[in-house]
């Protein structure tokens, strides 16, 4: 997919508009998984806008995002970063064979402290 189409696709899937971002960083300020992510919520928004999707696709961020929606909830501009991250993830996963993990590998990394929501969203992440 061409970068432009990727941007369009991600924007379409997310239902948000990254261009509305005023770069306040409240999303990243609210993010509980901030330190686990190499790219942070505000960067996702900006990088999607810039077309740096390849980098995001290969990042830990798309996997480590908890999908807790804190950023979405806090965003004053209704950019909804969580949905954009989810969209990047979906677009990446929809390219066959790009699964981050094979389903068999999941039990090994399961951890008692992992929030239920993360497991649920993991099911989406590893659905293919």
């Amino acid at each position, binding site marked *: 997919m061409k970068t432009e189409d990727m941007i369009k696709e991600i924007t379409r899937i997310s239902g948000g508009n990254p261009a509305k971002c005023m*770069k306040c960083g409240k999303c990243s*300020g609210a993010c509980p998984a901030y330190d686990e992510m190499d790219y942070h919520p*505000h960067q996702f928004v900006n990088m999607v806008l810039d077309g740096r999707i390849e980098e995001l696709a290969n990042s830990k961020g798309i996997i480590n995002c908890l999908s807790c929606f*804190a950023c979405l909830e806090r*965003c004053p501009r209704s950019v909804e970063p969580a949905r954009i991250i989810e969209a990047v993830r979906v677009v990446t996963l929809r390219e066959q064979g790009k699964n981050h993990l094979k389903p068999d590998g999941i039990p090994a990394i399961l951890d008692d402290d992992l929030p239920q929501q993360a497991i649920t969203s993991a099911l989406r992440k590893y659905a293919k």
Partner: protein
Amino acid sequence: MQRIGVFVCWCGSNIAATVDVQAVADALAKEPGVVFATNYQYMCSQTGQDMIQEKIKELGLTGVVICSCSPRMHEATFRRTCEKAGLNPYMVEIANIREQVSWVHKDKAVGTEKAIILGRAAIAKVQLNTPLIAGESPVTKRALVIGGGIAGIQTALDIADAGFPVDIVETKPTIGGKMAQLDKTFPTLDCAACILTPKMVDAGQNDNIRILSYSEVEEVKGFVGNFEVKIRRKARYVKEDLCTGCGLCMEKCPQKKVPNEFNMGLDNRTAIYIPFAQAVPKVATIDANYCLMLKNGKCGLCSRNCTAGAIDYKQQDEFIEEKYGAIVVATGFNPISLDKFDEFAYSKSPDVVSSLEFERLMNAAGPTGGTLLRPSDRTHPHTIVFVQCVGSRCDASAEKGKEYCSKICCMYTAKHAMLTREKYPDTEVYVFYIDVRTPGKSFDEFYRRAVEQYNVHYIKGMVGKVVPEGGKLKVQASDLLDNRQIHIDADMVVLAAAIEPDKSARPLATKLTASMDTNDFFTEAHPKLRPVESPTAGVFLSGTCQGPKDIPETVAQAGAAASKVIGLLVKDKLIGNPCVAKPNELMCNGCSSCEKVCPYGAITYEDKPFRGPNRTTLIRRVACVNPAVCQGCGACTVACPSGAMDLQGFSNRQIMAEVDAICK
């Protein structure tokens, strides 16, 4: 049949590039009634106007059609031109072939065709135009200022200085408004009270100013130059003329647990109170919600102790009616409610405060006597986090917050940070900002001083959450420039809340028939050219009721509004708009349909004698329109079933002639 002259303007290449102006003039010259048609480079130029005047005289034109820019641009210009040549100005019609033709269409053939059709429509209308003469109405030389903050005070003082009587209606017991609550003012850091209270005193002592405190506008009737306003003087249970403001009653009042709104509820006051020491008028007011006497009929201490005998528990709301020539709206602002911002723990911790609360905490007359103490434990805070843009610049679809920038927060936050650091150098101050917006004289220098001289930590990023924990406020935020998330254990968090128009503004706008935007700011007649006038004639705007403003801007606008008011009040008569509704009495049924839809109450009914058949006289109820009150909206013309009511300048026949010409 009219003798019509058609003048097609090129507007340089603005029109001529997309419309064949020669072809338009040629085509329109063939229209019935047209005796002359020409085109010229700039019709609005002196030469162009001279040409129009010359042709009016030379050919005895009875109507003029100008194909040019929008009538909103130059209709008045061309009407004046024609008037000077002896033609009634309302015999002029404009065909808008610039904004609505040459600028929106690219194809010259298409543009030319449309220009011809619009020209025909204008000619068809002029055929039915009749000379109209504007009516006159007198001007009541008295102004009303609604709101007694700095905007209202300044406007009133300026109008009073010009020699016109002014009434200030203020809903609170004293004038002064928000500025009275401020500690220092940016960028000079002089104390707000020091510069405001002299003005309040001036207003209180000016012979031309009457302050109606603790009062509200109840009803507005009339129109520019002739408003009739009904004002409710709320019962304050204290006789204003007798109270000396000695304050003895406050000392004796047993009800001492009333949240003090002047100090943002950070401390308490008594049920009978004077909001603050410099209040004008310095008159006590009894808060009926708390007064034991008014609630239970048991107490009466204040009355017994008042040496002036000013207490009157039986006082009722009173109404006064007054006539005004002009009304100035200066209803001001309030910080938005922060209850919905859970992430900042505003409702959870008393140490998370709004900026205006912080202002009171810093103020010598405030709840802490000017020492900065945490509201929770009255200890000195060592780490303070300021959060900017709380509720400002939000998306329209967001549930909380406002779309606009509140404009003043960057500067007052810099002020707060600076003052804190100056008074308490041991305090770490963090300011989280999205952008620092400091356009204004000496503004950016002020902000830089906070950073450079006072070492305030300005962090580009936003606080994501604040959690009260173990006496501290755990602040989690992003630092976008460092691309890291930071965690601060703060003692206090100060939220720069967005500002919004006062809640009284919306109902007031309805009473005044003045328009508002979606944020409840009053709309100006023109955003650039008429910024202090409301579209409703005779209603002017002063201060933050029109949009966020700092004090210097507010004062400037207040003066501007005053000068507009003065400009209106010095006139002895106002020339009206002759395009008003006019009933044909012979056809009027007197059914009152028109009256029901008139927003101005311009229609009344009279029993009039008419000649009946066979030399009889019939008395019939017929509608009469007051041309000075009618604004010419035309609602009545459609409500009228018999078509007796018509609008001059936009008559049924004229509009239908335009329709016909367009659909030809």
